[in-house]
């Protein structure tokens, strides 16, 4: 879907902010770009929609070189979400969401239908929210409108720069789940910049780690934890946290085995991390597993321990 | 001219603002450099640089102009631009004085030579380049004050040296030297005195408005209305009440209060000054962060200690900004006081307008502008130094 080749950005004579970077994101994938501040991750993102013009290299979207388009025309085809939403304070929610469709010259009726559809998708009653102003919304609602605005013209690619950075932890978790659900439904390719590894593991099908303008590693979360390419990546994926993060990537159903266990059951959709937590808290070696109320087997502490280590079964990295 | 005509390979080497300034300077070189008039009120006839100056001096000015154009158009260090601007300004000022001797027939005391539109435009261009360079140099407050003092000293030297004595402006000055200084003192007293009085009234009033929320809206809206009344009308409106005071309050006349003259002008100027001072005091005090005030309370400072050691010092830059606005404004409005017999430099302006003698207008307007400009630069520097020292203290 999107292919970055030898992309470089330098300002004057100082060392390049992004240095000869190449990577690829497959269609329908969420790629989380992680790095410390100053690693060049935001510049990389802004070069893709050409808010920043690259010094060298090129960007191909669906095989098409973005150089051939005018900047603002390119940006109308790519969704863009920034930290703190950046909603236009003088426009209603509907006008905000309809920004790009209006720029593209859609018919008013089409725009209205699309706005209502998106509000519905994000669980906001259109009749209640359409005419409100951004200042009348809660932080979480503003953030949702920001994402809805970016999706309004049905872009195939969505760029997100610290989209949940301004939210408190509880709302952030909910917003992340919501984004994952919406993405799964629409199949939009997403490139998401964050400094929060937890968020990257939670959302990213693949994670790209940047430092000093270079790409250190681009891999699935499981592989990155199992085989970090450099000490920096290892530190970033978090030494002590690693087993729990590994477990949080998989659902209980992946580790179900035949057999019985006592005590309250756990849902097959829950994460292995939740299962471990339940084992430790209730002092049991195994938990019964249920799906839609029917018992389907058990998950054991031994299996969890096995999967919490690198190269655990069932994870062909 | 060749500088402009030369094709420039890269636009990076051309200073676009400099091109604009160069165009202004070229316009100045075309317009008449000096005006010759047979007497002080007939319209003058202009002469270009070549006609208004002896050949050698005209060539010197032409050369300086070429250097100036080059320094303006090319991307050279700001210090070079500053030097080029200052040099052209100094030379133009010196030579316009020389043109007076050159153009006036010997022994003719009625003829007047005044700087022409070309001189003013040329000086304006030089000032623009120098100002742009000063902006780019980002001088610290004290540095700006030093530049101002130096410029004023040079101007004083120019006037004192007698280089301009042949010009009509100084001939007007020569025939009313005493009056000039008397009106000048009047002007300064009106402008500065009214600001001082407004501070004495406005600071406590602002403090009161800050403490008593209910007062704030009322006081500010009354002052707002006062501010919208045009100066000339307010001066006029005060004539009646003050005449009544002078006639009916014992001792008022002895204090110099009368219907016309300086008293209504002074009162009106104080009235105009109140709004910016009061509102800036309120804004400045409101801007002191609550946590700082809480900390001061926590350390056991009394209310008055908090006010004088914490709140007022932190609000000072904003309050001073209000005083700056008022001072510059009052120096300007004080010229109108002449209309009601209040004196000040406005006397010359209105006399000059009446007699269509522009030199006389200039005799009143130039010192006013100079005074206002000096006050603005000094107080701006003070505001910056003050807020800078607050910031430095905060960082410690």
């Amino acid at each position, binding site marked *: 879907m999107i292919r970055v080749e030898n992309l470089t950005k330098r300002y004057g004579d100082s060392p390049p902010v992004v240095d000869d970077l190449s990577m690829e994101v497959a269609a329908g994938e969420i790629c989380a770009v992680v790095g410390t501040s100053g690693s060049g991750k935001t510049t990389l993102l802004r070069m893709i*929609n050409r*808010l920043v013009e690259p010094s060298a290299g090129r960007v191909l979207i669906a095989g098409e070189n973005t150089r051939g388009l005018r900047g*603002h*025309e390119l*940006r*109308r085809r790519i969704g*863009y979400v*920034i*930290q*703190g*939403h*950046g909603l*236009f*304070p*003088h426009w209603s929610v509907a006008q905000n969401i309809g920004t790009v469709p209006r*720029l593209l010259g859609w018919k008013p009726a089409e725009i209205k239908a699309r706005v209502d559809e998106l509000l519905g998708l994000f669980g906001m009653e259109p009749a209640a929210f359409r005419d409100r*102003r951004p*200042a*009348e919304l809660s932080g979480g609602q503003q953030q949702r409108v920001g994402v809805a*605005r970016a999706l309004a013209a049905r872009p195939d690619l969505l*760029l997100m720069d610290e989209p949940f950075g301004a939210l408190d932890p509880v709302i952030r978790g909910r917003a992340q789940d919501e984004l994952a659900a919406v993405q799964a439904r629409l199949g939009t390719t997403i490139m998401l910049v964050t400094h929060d590894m937890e968020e990257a593991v939670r959302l990213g099908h693949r994670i790209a780690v940047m430092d000093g303008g270079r790409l250190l590693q681009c891999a699935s979360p499981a592989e990155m934890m199992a085989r970090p390419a450099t000490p920096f990546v290892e530190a970033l994926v978090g030494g002590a946290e690693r087993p729990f993060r590994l477990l949080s990537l998989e659902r209980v159903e992946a580790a179900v085995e035949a057999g019985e266990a006592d005590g309250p059951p756990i849902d097959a959709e829950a994460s292995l991390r939740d299962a471990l937590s339940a084992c430790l808290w209730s002092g049991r070696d195994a938990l019964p597993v249920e799906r839609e109320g029917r018992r389907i087997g058990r998950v054991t502490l031994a299996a969890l321990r096995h999967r919490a280590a690198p190269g655990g079964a069932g994870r062909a990295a | 001219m060749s500088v402009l005509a030369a094709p420039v390979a890269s636009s990076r080497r051309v200073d676009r*603002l400099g091109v604009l300034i160069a165009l202004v300077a070229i316009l100045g070189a075309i317009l008449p450099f000096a005006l010759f008039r047979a007497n002080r009120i007939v319209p003058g006839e202009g002469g270009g640089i070549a006609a208004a100056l002896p050949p050698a001096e005209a060539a010197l000015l032409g050369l300086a102009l070429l250097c100036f154009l080059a320094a303006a158009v090319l991307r050279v260090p700001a210090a070079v631009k500053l030097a080029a601007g200052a040099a052209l300004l100094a030379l133009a000022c010196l030579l316009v004085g020389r043109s007076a001797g050159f153009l006036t027939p010997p022994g003719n005391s009625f003829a007047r030579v005044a700087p022409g539109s070309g001189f003013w435009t040329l000086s304006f261009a030089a000032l*623009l380049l120098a*100002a*742009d360079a000063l*902006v*780019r140099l980002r001088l610290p407050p004290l540095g700006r004050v030093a530049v101002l003092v130096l410029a004023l000293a040079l101007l004083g030297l120019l006037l004192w040296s007698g280089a301009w004595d042949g010009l009509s402006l100084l001939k007007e000055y020569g025939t009313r030297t005493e009056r000039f200084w008397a009106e000048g003192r009047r002007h300064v007293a009106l402008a500065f005195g009214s600001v001082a009085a407004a501070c004495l009234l406005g600071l406590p009033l602002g403090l009161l408005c800050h403490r008593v929320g209910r007062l704030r809206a009322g006081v500010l809206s009354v002052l707002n209305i006062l*501010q*919208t*009344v*045009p*100066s*000339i*009308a*307010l001066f*006029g*409106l005060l*004539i*009646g009440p003050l005449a009544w005071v002078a006639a009916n309050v014992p001792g008022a006349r002895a204090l110099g209060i009368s219907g016309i003259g300086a008293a209504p002008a002074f009162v009106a100027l104080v009235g105009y000054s109140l709004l910016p001072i009061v509102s800036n005091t309120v804004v400045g005090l409101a801007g002191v962060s609550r946590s700082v005030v809480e900390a001061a309370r926590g350390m056991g400072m009394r209310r008055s200690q908090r006010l004088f050691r914490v709140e007022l010092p932190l609000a000072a830059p904003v309050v001073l900004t209000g005083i700056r606005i008022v001072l*510059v404004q009052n*120096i*300007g*409005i004080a*010229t109108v006081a002449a*209309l009601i017999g209040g004196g000040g430099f*406005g006397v010359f*302006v209105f006399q000059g*307008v009446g007699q*269509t003698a*522009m030199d006389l*207008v*200039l005799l*009143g*307007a130039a010192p*006013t*502008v100079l005074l*206002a*400009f000096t*006050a*603005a630069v000094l107080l701006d520097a003070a505001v910056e130094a003050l807020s800078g020292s607050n910031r430095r203290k905060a960082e410690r």
Partner: protein
Amino acid sequence: MRLLGAAWRIALLLGLGVFLARPDLFAPIFAPLTRFDAPAIYDGTSLLSLTLNHLALTFAATLAASALALGLAVLVTRPAGAEFLPFSRALANAGQTFPPVAVLALTVPLLGFGAAPTFLALFLYGLLPVFENALAGLSGVSPGVSEAARGSGMTGLQRLRLVELPLAAPVILAGIRLSAIVSLGTATVGSTVAAKTLGEVVIAGLLSGNTAFVLQGGLIVAALAILINDAFLWVEGRLRARLAS
């Protein structure tokens, strides 16, 4: 409170209207202020025509100054004009130190006496508040909002028209208000160079020692200033409310 404020403004407007239409009705009020049987109401030119002239001059100058100042402010806040920004700011700041009277008097040799030098002085002096405020308004648009506008694929012109100008509108309008009020006052002084404005009444009063003239000229200008100021404030308030709520 608000009702009271609106009521006294309407009363002021009505009073002004009646006074301008039938000034002779008010002669008994002003008569005690005159001496030696001087007329109580200015009779050199009709007060109504002076007022209309005054307003027309102020309006034209403010309109022209606002258009140019806004254009300049837009120019120096674009990337192409950015290098002019610090300089133009310093220039505007220095320009503020020129007293209106001096500007007025010094434009006479260029344009002669009458409305023309007054218009020029009002125009020049009116530029600064609008320029300063437009600059503050346009550069005060939050970085997040302008980033979002760019990211949505707006062209430079669309960003200006759809986002920056609407957001800066209240601040720009405040600048136009300041400009208009300063012009209204300076137009009064314009009578010293023979412009047909309400200053004529005040100056006639000052010259003949007729306080009644001074008072009526001053009162009309003050009433106009208060009403115009309030009208602007009202529109500004509406604009701000639209942005805030």
